[in-house]
Structure formats: structure tokens, C-alpha cells
């Protein structure tokens, strides 16, 4: 319980720090960077719930990112919904889609699961491309996303949009944290480590995986909504396999064993992209080299490495204390 309050306190602190950015008059470019990072950060963090905590490597996670984006965008363009209404509708649609896709996919493991999620993603992507009259095809949702005021909040104002995105982001991260530190989260780890043992202990592995799949999809959907609000549109490549690949890169870059690892990976990838794009058009080459160096050099994400070193140091200290105690005891016996 103490851990839960600590996590909620840290979430509140994180939100406060994010809200201080506009207070201190940060340039719009920094706010844009953070908003963009929050959208992709939710995609990567939610994917890590599947990859890092459950051992389900999904190649199709971006379909839920796109589902949230399109459902929200279309609802807003219809003019029949307020922003909170469209938000709830988009998450509901994403959850329903994840329930259907997940019910089929989570029965499989490893490469079969990965490729089936990829297949569903490409199916969804092609529906977006093909259903031109509804989705705008490969031109995406054109004409902007209307942002009518609600509860006195005006998301057409960039600062208010930033605050809205920050709150949504921190709430999602807090939910993910609660999930991974709950008994449900430990069940996910047990399934990751040995799903037969989990089944023998009476856990309904399929249902737990399905619940994880749906929660993860909903968080990715919120990421899609934030990006839709940021760019004022939704585009098919939100749901293309390369976007799923980017999320996997983010997890690789940041680390999958530490809770905030994928978020660190998102920041690294976005920073690398923004820096390289300023100075060269060979962005992919630079990204490729950095990823190679990290993968071959560190063999894990920077946060994983730090956590591992911290743990080694802690254990070494504990061992030193034990050794000193043993030595004292031995000296006492000798005396």
C-alpha cells in the first residue's frame, strides 16, 4: 500500500514538473517535443506491458494507436460529440477491437502470436486505405479535427492542449504502474516466465493475457488520440507496421525491464530524430548506427543497465556488510 501511495505521489510530481514547463515560458518547440513524445511514449509503454511484462511480442500494436486516433478524429469530425465523449468512444472502440483481435491472438505464443498481430494490423491498415469515403484513404482525415470547448477548456489553445495531454499522459502512466505492481501484474510476469506453471496454479492464462492485451491497446489508443490532437488529423501510417517497429525500437533503446525504460527510449529516439533531421537527411543511417551501438555495446537499454548496476552495487554492499559481520563474529570466536 505504501508503494502505491509512493507511485501516486511520484505521478503527481511528474505531472507538476510537466505543468511547470509552460509556466516557465518554455518555447513552443519544447512543448511540441514533449507532446509528441507523450503520444509515442504511451505507445511504447503500453507495448512494453505486452513485451516486457507478459512476454508477448506484438508486431501489430500500432493498429490500436491508429484505432484510437481514427475513432476520435471521426467522432470529432461528425460534430456529434464533445471531446470527452469522443475520447471515451475512441477508447471503447479500441477496447472492443482489442477484445476481438486479442481473443484470437493470445491463444498463440511467440512467433505465431507476433505474426498474427502483424496480419491483423495490415488488415486494419488496408481497411483504412481502402475505405476512402469514410477514412480519407491514404490522404487521412483531412480538414482538421474540431476542438469545441468543454468545461471551459479550449484545446485550440496550445497551452491548454499541452496541459490536457500532460494530464492524460500521467493518468495513463499511473494506470500502467498500478497494473504492473498489482497482483495482476505479478501474474503477468509469472506467465512470461513459465505459463505452464501459472496454468497449473489455476490461473486462466488466456483470460489474463486477453485482459493485458485490452488494457495495453486502450493505453496505445490514448497515445493515438493525443497525436491526433497534436497534428489535427489522423493518417494511415499511424497504423502501419513501421510504427509498431518504432515502438519496439523505443523499448530496445530504453530497456524493457525497468518500468520507465520505454519512455526513456522514446525520448532518445525522438531526440535523435530531431537532431539528425536538423543537420542531415541521413536520419535512418544515424539511427541505425546508434541502435547497433546500443544493442551490440550495452546489450540492453540504458535504464536496464543502470538498474542492473544499482542492484549489483546494492548486493555488493550487502555482501560487504555480511562479510564484515562474519569477520567480527570469527574474531569474537577466536578471542
Amino acid at each position, binding site marked *: 500500500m505504501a508503494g502505491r501511495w509512493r507511485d501516486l505521489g511520484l505521478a503527481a510530481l511528474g505531472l507538476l514538473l510537466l505543468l511547470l514547463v509552460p509556466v516557465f515560458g518554455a518555447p513552443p518547440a519544447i512543448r511540441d517535443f514533449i507532446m509528441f513524445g507523450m503520444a509515442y511514449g504511451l505507445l511504447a509503454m503500453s507495448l512494453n506491458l505486452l513485451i516486457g511484462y507478459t512476454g508477448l511480442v506484438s508486431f501489430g500494436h500500432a493498429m490500436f494507436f491508429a484505432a484510437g486516433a481514427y475513432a476520435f478524429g471521426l467522432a470529432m469530425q461528425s460534430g456529434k460529440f464533445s471531446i470527452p465523449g469522443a475520447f471515451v468512444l475512441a477508447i471503447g472502440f479500441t477496447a472492443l477491437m482489442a477484445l476481438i483481435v486479442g481473443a484470437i491472438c493470445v491463444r498463440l505464443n511467440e512467433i505465431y502470436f507476433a505474426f498474427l498481430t502483424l496480419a491483423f494490423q495490415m488488415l486494419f491498415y488496408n481497411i483504412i486505405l481502402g475505405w476512402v469515403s469514410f477514412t480519407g484513404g491514404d490522404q487521412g482525415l483531412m480538414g482538421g479535427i474540431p476542438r469545441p470547448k468543454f468545461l471551459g477548456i479550449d484545446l485550440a489553445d496550445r497551452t491548454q492542449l499541452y496541459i490536457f495531454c500532460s494530464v492524460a499522459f500521467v493518468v495513463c502512466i499511473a494506470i500502467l504502474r498500478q497494473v504492473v505492481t498489482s497482483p495482476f501484474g505479478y501474474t503477468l510476469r509469472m506467465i512470461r516466465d513459465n505459463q505452464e506453471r501459472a496454468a497449473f496454479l489455476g490461473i486462466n492464462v488466456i483470460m489474463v493475457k486477453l485482459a493485458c492485451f485490452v488494457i495495453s491497446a486502450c493505453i496505445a489508443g490514448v497515445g493515438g488520440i493525443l497525436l491526433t490532437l497534436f497534428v489535427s488529423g489522423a493518417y494511415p501510417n499511424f497504423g502501419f507496421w513501421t510504427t509498431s517497429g518504432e515502438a519496439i525500437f523505443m523499448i530496445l533503446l530504453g530497456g524493457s525491464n525497468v518500468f520507465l525504460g520505454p519512455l526513456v527510449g522514446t525520448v532518445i529516439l525522438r531526440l535523435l530524430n530531431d537532431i539528425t533531421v536538423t543537420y542531415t*537527411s541521413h536520419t535512418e543511417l544515424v539511427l541505425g548506427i546508434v541502435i547497433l551501438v546500443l544493442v551490440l555495446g550495452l546489450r540492453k537499454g540504458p535504464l536496464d543497465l543502470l538498474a542492473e548496476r544499482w542492484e549489483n552495487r546494492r548486493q555488493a554492499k550487502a555482501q560487504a556488510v555480511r562479510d564484515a559481520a562474519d569477520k567480527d563474529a570469527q574474531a569474537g570466536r577466536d578471542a
Partner: protein
Amino acid sequence: MTSTESRRASRRQVLKGAGALAAAGVIGAPAISKAQTGAIKIGVPTILSGRVAILGQTSVGGLKVVFDKFNAAGGINGRKIEMVVRDSKGAPQEAAKVTRDLINNDKCEIILDAEASSAAFAVQEVIREIGVLCIHSNSETSSLTADPKLHVPTAFRTARQGIHDAIGGGDYAAKIAKAKGLKKWATCSPDYAYGRSNTAEFMEYAKHFDGNIQVVEESWPKLFQPDYTEVVTKLLNAKADAMYSALWGGDLVAFIDQANLYGLFDKQASFMVNLGDYGVVDQVKQFPQGVYSGGRYNRTVPATKENEEWYQNYVKTQKHKPTNWSWENAVAAEFVVEALKKTDGDTNGKKMAEAIKGMTLRSQFGTKGTVTMRAEDNTLIDYIIGYGVSLSKEPYVADFQASAWEPIIELEKQWKKKQGYIS
């Protein structure tokens, strides 16, 4: 002990300071350093990497030719133009972010959007919010400026429009079809919005001008498809009298190379809107003769001294040949320069837009030696549209026939009514 603590605190402060400086350096510092040069900064989001990098390369070439001349003449009020070019990789969300960064971070006062279509729509939304002057120089999708719901007062287009090409091309195709009895038609265009809408519009107007035309086969190869054997076989089996294709760039090159192996172009009349561009001409192993080619950019169209000089100057300064995107961007740059002269260097979006709206420019790319930015929908008219017949060597296109603009504008009005864009 006290001194150790103070040293620790100081080290932390230094680390924090260094972190803050690094963050500012990465995200904010370019704006500070570059904003003090006094130049008029023009942001250019475009595609500089991947299979269509030629789009960005030749677009920037077209802009540079005009801006270099402007700068060499001293600029305006001592201010020269500085281009800030960024690669969006063609992804709409990246294009939106890059455009915002160009304005907010790099302090660009004008945006010349050299993006392909879907990213151009994303840029349009950024402009709607920020309100700087923007000229879309590559997106041919008609709705960008034709649909009043998408209208942004400070956004214009100098790229050719799909509907204009379709009407001009349909008229030309119908005349050839009547003369040669080409009744059965096949189509072969890329399977995405541009390919489908361009082909539908071309065939609609071909049928409008010649009621005997009927489409007997449709082929939709995927974008960036490497192998066209199946498509070519399908076209041969259709035994059509003529074929229309909106394939472009590397896809068109691959298709022609593979179709040549089957002698496709000897067995039917072929109409290809994107054939006669140097980006294609220089890449095809055996450039087909006798294919009806849409006018993109060619040094002989129009066959004037100005055009030849422009071509020579472009090749000399940019070290590559210009493409259709080059002239579209050159015209965009000329509009910016003329508007700056009218506003006396004031880059305010509204003032620049007022200056450009309805502006007519002397230009070798215009049918009457001028091009006009039509005030009613902020789009370019009177540019050269037409078809010629391909030659296997220089100048690659002969017998070019420019389309008349009066019927294009009349039929465009009817098309807009049909789409519900005007009443």
C-alpha cells in the same frame, strides 16, 4: 564535512546546468543563434530520403535558383532569403511537427511546403493554426484547394492540379481516340488515392469528349511494386486499343523496362501522364517511342529562349536536371519574391496572402507567358498543360499540344459543383 557537501551540491548544480544547457542546445538553441542573422527564413518541409528523395532534391533546386538570384540582387531592405530545409520522410505527422518546428524553433516566417499529398494536408492544418504564408508546391490533389472546407486564407498552391490535367488530358486523348478509332481502353495506375482519382478523372473526361470510349480492363499495381509481369500480362490479354497510366517515378521506370520486354507499347496506344519528366527519362533503359506523354517539365516545352536559359542555368547551378517539381517550386519562389516586393519585405502572413491573391506573374511556365494565382481558391492557373509524343532521344517529347485553359476552367466549375464544392 561541510566542504564535501558543498562540493557535492556544486557538482549537482553543474550537472543540472549542463543538462539544461544540453536540452536547450538540442531543442531551442538553433532558434536563438539563427534568428539573429536578419535573413528572411523560409522553411521547406519535404522528402529528402527514401525512394522519392528526388522530389525533395529537385524541389529545393527549383527554389534555390530563384532565391539565389534574389539574394545576389541584394534581397529586400538588406534582408536576404535563407532556406531551412527539413526531411519529413513523407510521414504526415512528421511533416506537421517539422513545420511547427520550422516556425517556432527555426523562426521561419514563410513555409514553402514541398511535401507530397498526404503530408501537405497535415501542413495545411498547421498553417490554419499559425497563420504564416504557405505555398504548397508539390501536392496535386485537387481537394487541397478546391474543397472550401479545407480552405486556409494564407495557404496557396503552385503545384499543377489533378483535375486540370484530367480535363486537358481527356480532351487530347479523345481527339486521338476519334482519329485512330481507340474504343477499348485499359488502365494501369498505382493503387492509392492519387492513382485511383487521377485515373478516374482522366477516363471520365476522355469519355466526356468521346462517348465511344469504354474501359475494358483496370490494373492497380501496389505503390513501389518491383515486379510488373502480372500487370503487363493482364494488359496484353485485355487486347485493348489504348492504355492510360498514372504510374510515376521509380514505379514508372520499372513498369516501362518490364513492358518493353513484352513489346507492350507496340501493341497498343499508350497515354502516360508522368512519362516525359527527366527523372523518368534518364532512368529508363530503353525509352519508348510514340507513347503519348503528359507535359511535366521539358526544356523544349515551351520551346522558348527563356525556358532553355532556365534549364541551362538550373543544370549548371544544381548539377542535375530539373523535374516537374522544379518548375512548380520555382514558381512558388517567384510568388514569394514578388509578394515581398509588394509588402516591402513584411512577411506577415495576412499581408503576404493579400499580395499573392490574384497575382499574375510573367513566367515561361505559363501558356500565355504568365501564370495566375486564382483568387477564388488560392490555386495556380494558366500553367502549361498538354500532351506530346515521346521520342527515344533528346528532346524526348515532340508535337507537344498545349491545352486551352477556357474549357478547362469551364469543366472544372462543373466538376466542383458535382463535388459540392460550389453551388
